[in-house]
């Protein structure tokens, strides 16, 4: 990853935060806009999740990541802490790869 892209991304994120403090208040107050911001967050995280789970270059593959995610989902459902979910998923995938 280049430093230029890293600094550009950080700058964009900071300016977005700052806009909230400088913008006229009614500007982005519309409920539809808020709704859209929330849905953009959900959609991007979900797409990132899907690509990270099933993507491998330009192919869709089912490998050790899938059972790992099933375990992660069960743990999240049981309200396990974030770090436990992440470590457990990594451990399941690592053990399955070791076994095969």
């Amino acid at each position, binding site marked *: 990853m280049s*430093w230029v892209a890293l600094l550009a991304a950080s700058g964009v994120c900071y300016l977005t935060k700052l806009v909230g*403090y400088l913008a006229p208040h009614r500007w*982005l107050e519309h409920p539809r806009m808020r709704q859209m911001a929330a849905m953009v967050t*959900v959609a991007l995280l979900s797409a990132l999740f899907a*690509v990270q789970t099933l993507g491998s270059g330009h192919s869709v593959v089912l490998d050790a990541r899938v059972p*790992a995610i099933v375990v992660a989902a069960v743990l999240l459902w049981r309200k396990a802490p974030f770090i436990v979910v992440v470590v457990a998923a990594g451990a399941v995938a690592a053990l399955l790869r070791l076994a095969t």
Partner: protein
Amino acid sequence: MADSLVRNTVLRQALSVGIATGAYGISFGALSVASGLTVAQTCALSLLMFTGGSQFALVGVVGAGGTGVASVVTAGLLGIRNGFYGLQMAPLLRARSWRRPLAAQLTIDESTAVGTAQSRPDLVRLGFWSTGLAVFVLWNLTTLFGAVLGDAMGDPRSYGMDAAAAAAFLGLIWPRLTTLRPRAVAIGAAVLAVALIPIAPAGVPVLAAVLVAVAGSWQKGGDRPKPDQVAP
């Protein structure tokens, strides 16, 4: 309750939120290094970007082979909600001069959630600033720790780091799936992204999800988004 007790309660809340997000920091540090960023770049992200969703997204896109532009756009779009938090906090904080740019950097899910949950203006300010600072300090320390740890571990795939990254995204999205609309948008976005993997350049399947978000926001319905206590 006496005033000092109330203020102590707010400060305790801030500290516990900071400690909880520290765990995310370790995961982020390790996953970032596994995606090919250096320890210095990983730490720079936590210092300068300081918004967990965007940071995880950036290293996710880079790890999947996406271009610099795709990673910048994805991280930027995920940061949009912080702008809305700022809009919400600005009249409550009344931050002036040097405090305003500082408040902006500390405007994330957690500080907004703790701040807006308070009943009095002075407690709103205390909640926002103490949570923002606690998360900032702990997030950066744990990022460094995670990055050094990840660096020492070697081959990320044999440790299941790719699965761990997927689980991290699932953990970030989980608390947002409380109503029907975000669930439908999440499913639509995931299906579209997977369908695009074989045909679109890396990074594009994720960005295409924005179309699903726009379509999903167009539908009429009542649920209003609230800041929730997930990663900063």
